[in-house]
């Protein structure tokens, strides 16, 4: 830079940051943080109808929470549940809290469907009528004579053959024990009263999640003090736990690393100025990255923030490099310093921006967000160093010789010599180490590995599943047909297969609309079946006469049957009577396609289920599997992008320094990356898409270190200090994440640690020949 105007550049910086602050004050007042995992996935990956089905399925499932209040007697359990219900309602988190299941709803449903009783038959009754209608009569006698028969034959006068009673009871295949209208389950030496809730939002904000966890904890405590036990499960709890533990760890690690960095920088510079300056550089970068990304994307994901913030950490290199350059000369001033380091820093920035830009070309929204966020952040942090530091570093000198300088000076002098002396066996060991590690390295893309829910949450969820096996699993079938008739036919075929699998215990239960609602054809068949087997054959008349029905009732029954011949129950009307969970199965008809989902509960043999692909119009939807597959695909894509980034950086450096120089500089990140990967392999660490962010950070930092040493010339001592300080701060900031129990965060920290240490060790080995006199 020929013209050096610190005040002018600082003014420019200030104006820019003001603009960003003004933009930020508008952008950040809205709801800008996205926490849903699915938002990271590209929408184009899924067919729209599958995406719609998944959305509907998740929308329903993610909002559901199941609460079981347990006690020694059912009365106590109900008491706990009643208190719990009150609390839940007061919390305002839920749109629906259900404790009592009103008999009125059933009565209404009964009334509405009753006129169509000759069209509606459940599967078992139909089979009985087809095979041997006498069985139906026999079963009726059994029921009527049973001590509990009155309950099942309550409407004997209007439903003498009890066909509608059968259909109605088959609508609710799981028999639940009701006390005072409350579902009471028994098991595990306790009685459990059931409370079902729907959260108001399917994507809870972080603060709401915290309120929710607090509510669960205090409610559990309350029931426990009263001598009971509370079991809770729901997707939201897992999300809440994940968010909470990540937050907690990040803040613990954050405090630890901040302290470490403060101590380190204080010990080196004996001044707060460097600390404030590097914080300012990174802080400005973060702010700018955040504001611009929110303006551009509307909302950014919490993971973007975490990974993006890490990548901006590269900016620390520039700050440290500038600061440490002051050790290089006695009559140092910012002007000279900047002049010396600017070319290296510009090249470092360019190569990093190039590699981040690579991410932006992926169709993965998460990666695009990270790319923009980090690129803007890094650029602004870099500009802060270049534009603002000259003014703020005026008069910045060292009157002391920090201990760390002696250490790095010694290190810088002796380490390359030692390596050179031992290069044969070192090279061999390194090659074997890298080759072996890469050989062992196996990618793990299973999305479940990324979650680490605590054991007690899992235990609760498991207990609830045993007591109340009603919540559908993640996997489901999507059934379609060109019209209702075809859809119905397709779903019926699927349900038959599922019934067979259920008998083989491959799953506990399934739920599909066509099980309850016969289409127009089937309704006609049902009517004809009844006509042929019961009414026209005289069987019903004989049965009614034998039981002692009045002749007028017999005649009235036959008359009603004859009158109902042309009745047909449309799906819309049936759906209107059904409860929410059944209504949600229907996805509707549009543009020549009718669709529904078939939900599954208690899957034991997922392979047997996923194998049902040969049926027409049936698609198997396994989100866990497809997200995992997606992760695998994007891991590969991101790896390619990483290679492209390497290529671009090498090309750029090659143009500037010639291919030999380019290779020399690039050897630092290449070795760092290889060792990092090998370490992942040797230690059996999780290797997935998310490690690639860490590798990108390693690439950026490796290029910087390589460049700084390559261009150090006679300032190797100050360069060594700058690089060491930068590496130590990076390790403190991100390497510490390796202690996290959240898999993604841990993997990130581990990868960064391995890569940075390697880069720190290999960078001093280059740029030697040029200046060793």
């Amino acid at each position: 830079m020929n013209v050096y105007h610190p005040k002018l550049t600082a003014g420019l910086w200030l104006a820019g940051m003001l603009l960003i602050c003004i933009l930020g004050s508008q952008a950040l007042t809205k709801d800008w943080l996205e926490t849903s995992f699915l938002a990271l996935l590209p929408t184009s990956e899924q067919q729209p109808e599958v995406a719609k089905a998944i959305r509907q399925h998740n929308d329903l499932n993610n909002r559901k929470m199941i609460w079981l209040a347990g006690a020694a007697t059912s009365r106590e359990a109900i008491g706990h549940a009643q208190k719990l219900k009150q609390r839940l309602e007061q919390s305002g988190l839920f749109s629906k809290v259900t404790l009592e299941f009103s008999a009125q709803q059933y009565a209404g449903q009964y009334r509405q469907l009753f006129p169509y009783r000759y069209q509606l038959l459940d599967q078992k009754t139909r089979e009985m009528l087809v095979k041997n209608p006498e069985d139906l009569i026999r079963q009726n006698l059994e029921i009527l004579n049973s001590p509990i028969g009155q309950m099942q034959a309550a409407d004997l006068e209007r439903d003498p053959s009890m066909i509608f009673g059968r259909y109605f009871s088959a609508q609710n295949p799981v028999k639940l024990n009701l006390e005072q209208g409350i579902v009471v389950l028994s098991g595990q030496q306790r009685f459990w009263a059931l409370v079902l809730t729907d959260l108001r939002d399917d994507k809870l904000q972080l603060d709401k999640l915290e309120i929710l966890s607090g509510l669960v904890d205090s409610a559990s405590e309350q029931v426990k003090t009263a001598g009971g036990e509370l079991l809770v499960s729901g997707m939201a709890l897992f999300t809440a736990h994940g968010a909470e533990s990540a937050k907690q760890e990040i803040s613990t690690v954050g405090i630890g690393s901040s302290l470490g960095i403060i101590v380190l920088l204080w010990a080196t510079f004996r001044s707060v100025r460097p600390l404030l300056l590097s914080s300012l550089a990174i802080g400005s970068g973060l702010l700018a990255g955040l504001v611009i990304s929110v303006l551009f994307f509307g909302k950014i994901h919490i993971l973007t923030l975490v990974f993006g913030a890490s990548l901006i950490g590269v900016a620390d290199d520039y700050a440290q490099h500038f600061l440490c350059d002051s050790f290089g000369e006695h009559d140092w001033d910012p002007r000279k310093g900047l002049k010396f380091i600017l070319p290296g820093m510009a090249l470092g920035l360019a190569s990093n921006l190039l590699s981040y830009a690579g991410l932006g070309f992926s169709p993965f929204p998460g990666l695009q967000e990270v790319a923009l966020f980090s690129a803007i952040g890094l650029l602004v942090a870099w500009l802060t160093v270049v534009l603002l530091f000259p003014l703020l570093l005026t008069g910045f000198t060292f009157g002391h010789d920090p201990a760390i300088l002696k250490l790095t000076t010694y290190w810088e002098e002796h380490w390359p010599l030692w390596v050179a002396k031992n290069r044969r066996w070192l090279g061999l060991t390194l090659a074997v180490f890298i080759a072996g590690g890469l050989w062992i390295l196996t990618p793990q893309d299973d999305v479940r590995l990324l979650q680490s829910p605590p054991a007690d949450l899992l235990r609760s969820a498991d207990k609830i599943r045993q007591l109340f096996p009603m919540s559908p699993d993640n996997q489901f079938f999507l059934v379609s047909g060109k019209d209702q008739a075809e859809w119905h036919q397709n779903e019926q075929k699927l349900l038959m297969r599922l019934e067979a699998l259920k008998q083989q215990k491959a799953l506990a239960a399934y739920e599909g609309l066509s099980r309850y609602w016969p289409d127009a054809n089937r309704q006609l068949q049902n009517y004809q079946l009844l006509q042929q087997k019961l009414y026209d054959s005289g069987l019903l008349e004989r049965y009614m006469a034998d039981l002692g029905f009045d002749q007028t009732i017999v005649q009235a029954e036959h008359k009603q049957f004859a009158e109902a011949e042309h009745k047909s129950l449309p799906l819309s009307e049936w759906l209107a009577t059904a409860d929410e969970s059944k209504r949600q199965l229907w996805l509707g008809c549009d543009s020549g396609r009718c669709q529904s989902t078939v939900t599954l509960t208690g899957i034991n043999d997922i392979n047997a289920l996923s194998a049902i692909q040969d049926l027409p119009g049936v698609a198997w939807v396994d989100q866990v599997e497809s997200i995992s597959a997606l992760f695998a695909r994007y891991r590969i894509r991101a790896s390619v992008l990483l290679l492209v980034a390497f290529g671009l950086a090498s090309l750029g450096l090659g143009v500037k320094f010639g291919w030999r120089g380019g290779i020399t500089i690039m050897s630092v990140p290449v070795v760092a990356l290889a060792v990092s990967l090998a370490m992942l392999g040797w230690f059996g660490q999780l290797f997935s898409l998310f490690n690639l962010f860490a590798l990108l950070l390693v690439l950026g930092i490796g290029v910087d270190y390589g460049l700084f040493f390559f261009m150090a010339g006679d300032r190797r001592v100050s360069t060594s200090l700058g690089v060491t300080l930068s590496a130590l701060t990076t390790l403190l900031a991100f390497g510490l994440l390796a202690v996290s129990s959240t898999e993604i965060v841990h993997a990130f920290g581990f990868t960064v640690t391995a890569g940075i240490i390697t880069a720190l060790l290999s960078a001093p080995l280059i740029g030697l020949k040029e200046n060793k006199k």
Partner: protein
Amino acid sequence: MILLKALLLYLLAFGQGIAGEAVLTEIAERLAKTPIAHGDFHQQKHLKVLQKPLISTGTFTYHQNKGVIWKTLTPVASLLLVNESKLLTGQGEQAVPAAFGKVFKAMLGGDIAALTEGFSVNATDQKPSWQLELTPKDDMLKRIISTMVLSGDTELRALEIQEAGGNVTRISFDNITHPAQLTGEQEADFERLSP
């Protein structure tokens, strides 16, 4: 029947003075005390809609801890198994209001808490025979049952259930024995009730 006795003692304690204490104590003392009871039943159901009663016969087995086996032999052989959490019939597990299943079991000496929680008791004693009239307190149960009358001497001999809808069920018990052990077949039936 030990459970009926326990029931009486329970009523004695919590019957809110409706039944004379002395009467309940005396009735309780008269009853046979064993954990297992077995006998024949004869059931007549008078349904309003039918002009003749539904008559069935069979055997019952009561076990203090395991529940009740209600085995109908005529006119159609069938089996009903019940304990405090489950009710099985030939059609599988049944969704009946818990109150009903509980009451039925408690009749033969089962869930005392359920019975006494829900009923007010009126006892008359004409030695050696006695009669207890139970009226439900709970509104849900009132809609189903208006009264239940239990009568007996050293055993429960008869049971009459008056339903709110006007249907009446009368059951009489004969040949009551108190075996020391369940038969293999009975054990197997109870086994089906355990989860």
